[in-house]
């Protein structure tokens, strides 16, 4: 039998059509596989509509897009690990989540896979990307860390104090979340989606609700829409407060760190009173917002703003702090675009990329997209500061316009949902996309591509050439979630 040698084919229709979208400046929402040997790419066009391209991978192979679209490198590796569809001529097809313990023919998302395969013996060690040479030290950090963070294994190639290359091995938990969702009904997956991750929970909940509403063609009342804005912006503030408080910790600015966390605590206690949960889990699903809640919210904003102004002054006054952030962890505008950076990381390079502008929900409020130019830690800090303030203004606008709650019939989700939806929202960490396929009221395929997932490769790029001691600072300026990348 002859070994088949596959070469990259730039004229493959799958490649050309996606290259065309990129050239038009469309935004890639998701690229994922399906059990029926299909790969689908969803593009957000400039007019806000979504284009769907698909390819059928005959004999489990398809032409790689990584060569023209470096941002899908991880997505294609994930498809390879979970479905076994091979991207032809992918430049770096090391396992992303597969470990040596998985049996050879085990592809978790393929049809008819055992729940508990026969795990093989061996260390769960993955191939590393390292730089070799004289005086270069390979430094491994994690997966268990000294702080209260999740598990991620970082392999640094270090020369002296300088980082030459960072290879991040995430996906340590193997929750099997996408497989777990399959075959479940809407009420069963609701709490699971809300608990996908602690920092972007509301955005995930919103995507699920959107999917239901698209399939059933339901239109929610204005009050509920306003309430959704309140929840979403509350989460943005909560998450940004956490991220803003973490950045000073990276340079030993303990006062700003602790006072920032105190602000976050104040906000969380308010959230527990108004929406019933400190992390806003399940908060988006609710539809009741009473006059009393409104008063609570207004007084929370007032007491928050007084302390917030003090905190901003504390950090702005400290010249050494700003000096420490400037020029560190720089991402150029071009790299950000090529690697598919989203959210704060993208806006910190000066690009007005905010998905809220495409979300129908936000058409009723005025806000400006916050940007900064440096692309460094300081720029990301600055963007977050501005966004907290713009979110506060959105909250005030919304509360002012919100009428009295109307009595609504409780919505019953039909048991025969069928259809495919692509829903997206701007989470605190960037564009968050869910691809959901419903079949007879059950999930047939659920794919999650969160903001953190897209920004991890950008982080690896940002730390290159910086000193090792600055990694915590750069990492905290992205503050990416490990949980929503776990598969």
């Amino acid at each position, binding site marked *: 039998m002859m070994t088949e040698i596959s070469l990259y084919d730039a004229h493959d229709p799958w490649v050309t059509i996606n290259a065309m979208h990129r050239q038009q400046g469309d935004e890639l929402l998701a690229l994922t596989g399906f059990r029926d040997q299909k790969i689908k790419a969803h593009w957000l066009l400039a007019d806000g509509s979504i284009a769907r391209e698909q390819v059928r991978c005959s004999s489990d192979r398809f032409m790689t897009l990584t060569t023209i679209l470096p941002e899908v490198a991880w997505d294609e590796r994930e498809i390879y690990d979970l479905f076994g569809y091979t991207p032809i001529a992918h430049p770096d097809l090391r396992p992303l989540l597969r470990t040596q313990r998985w049996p050879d023919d085990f592809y978790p998302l393929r049809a008819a896979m055992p729940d508990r395969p026969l795990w093989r013996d061996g260390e769960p060690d993955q191939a590393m990307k390292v730089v070799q040479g004289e005086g270069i030290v390979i430094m491994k950090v994690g997966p268990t860390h000294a702080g209260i963070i999740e598990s991620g294994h970082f392999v640094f190639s270090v020369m002296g104090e300088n980082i030459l290359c960072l290879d991040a091995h995430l996906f340590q938990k193997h929750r099997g979340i996408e497989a777990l969702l399959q075959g479940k009904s809407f009420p069963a997956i609701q709490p699971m989606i809300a608990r996908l991750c602690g920092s972007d929970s509301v955005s995930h909940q919103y995507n699920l609700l959107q999917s239901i509403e698209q399939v059933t063609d339901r239109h929610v009342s204005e009050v509920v829409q306003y309430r959704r804005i309140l929840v979403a912006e509350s989460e943005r503030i909560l998450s940004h407060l956490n991220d803003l408080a973490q950045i000073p910790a990276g*340079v*030993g600015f303990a006062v700003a760190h*602790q006072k920032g966390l*105190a602000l976050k605590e104040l906000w969380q206690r308010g959230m527990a009173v108004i929406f019933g949960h400190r992390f806003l889990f399940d908060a988006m699903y609710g539809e009741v917002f009473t006059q009393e809640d409104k008063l609570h919210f207004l007084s929370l904003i007032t007491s928050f703003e007084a302390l917030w102004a003090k905190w901003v002054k504390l950090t702005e006054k400290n010249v050494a702090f700003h000096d420490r952030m400037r020029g560190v962890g720089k991402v150029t505008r071009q790299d950000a675009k090529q690697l598919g950076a989203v959210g704060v990381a993208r806006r910190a390079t000066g690009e007005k990329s905010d998905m809220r502008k495409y979300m129908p929900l936000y058409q009723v409020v005025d806000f400006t997209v916050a940007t900064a130019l440096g692309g460094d830690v300081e720029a990301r800090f600055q963007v977050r500061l501005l966004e907290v303030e713009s979110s506060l203004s959105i909250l005030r606008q919304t509360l002012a316009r919100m009428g009295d709650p109307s009595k609504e019939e409780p919505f019953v989700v039909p048991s025969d949902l069928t259809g495919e939806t692509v829903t997206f929202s701007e989470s605190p960490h960037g564009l968050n996309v869910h691809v959901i396929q419903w079949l007879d009221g059950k999930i047939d395929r659920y794919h999650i591509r969160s903001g953190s997932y897209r920004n991890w490769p950008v982080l690896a790029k940002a730390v290159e050439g910086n000193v090792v001691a600055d990694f915590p600072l750069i990492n905290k300026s992205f503050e990416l979630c490990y949980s929503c990348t776990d598969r």
Partner: protein
Amino acid sequence: MTQTMIVQSFGFFIAIGLSPFFVGLIQTTKARIQGRHGPSVWQGYYVLLKYWKKETTLPENSSLIFVIAPIVSISVMLLIMLFIPWGKQLPGVLAGDFIMVFFLLALERFWTALAGLDTSGTFGGLGASRILTIGIGLEPMLFAVFGLCFFLTGNTHFAQISPLWLRQAPHLLAWFLAAGGFALTILLEIGRLPIDNPDTHLELTMMHEATQLEYNGRLFAFSHFASMCKVTAMLAIGWVWFGPTLSSQWWTLLLHLFELGVSSILVGVVESFTIKMRFFRIPYYVSAVIGMGLLAVVITAF
């Protein structure tokens, strides 16, 4: 004579005994400024007791160096404490030589670095490299600052410099420069902000702590206690040199203890409002201190 001996021994034991308390004061000050209640000022004692009670295990790849290093650290610190004149000193009594102290500090640094390298862990090596790099700057800093003392008294003995020093300083400016320079040197030597952050859990940014990551049990109790004593010793040297003395031996000892408390709180305040500087910016810090020391000498000489 006997009174000097009694005060000296008394001061030695009290200062050692209170070392964890002074570190506790720094921590409490920081906690209060951050708006936290913070642990008790006696936390240092509980921590030492905890380490002491725990089982001591050795890393697989470690050699005898790993065991010796903490013992060297604690011995060096106790020896330095012994050299510090705790009362008002009479010339010729208990001759502690400051050049000796510098080299004892260097010895301690050398062993700490060796211990960091010994286990061949990544962070140990990183920490060792960093503390030795800083050490290069530290020695000229100490010499530059003490150059003035030597220049004025012609002596390198603690005991003979301390009582004479203030009266002989002809220029207040020179005193300020040297004292300020030494204050900055202390922060570097005891591994506090803006150089090193002793409270961090981030291995990648650690300096001194990185060499200690593999330690546990009693060996760690030793090195932890040594770093506490180092804080007391460096602050005490500063006060003995640049602070006043009183006419009575006992009152001088009490004054020194009070000064140690005050300076611990000051370190806490400084730590709260400074940021850890970039590692490659430390040479500027070093050269600023050396410049201050030399300037003090120049002002005095002309």
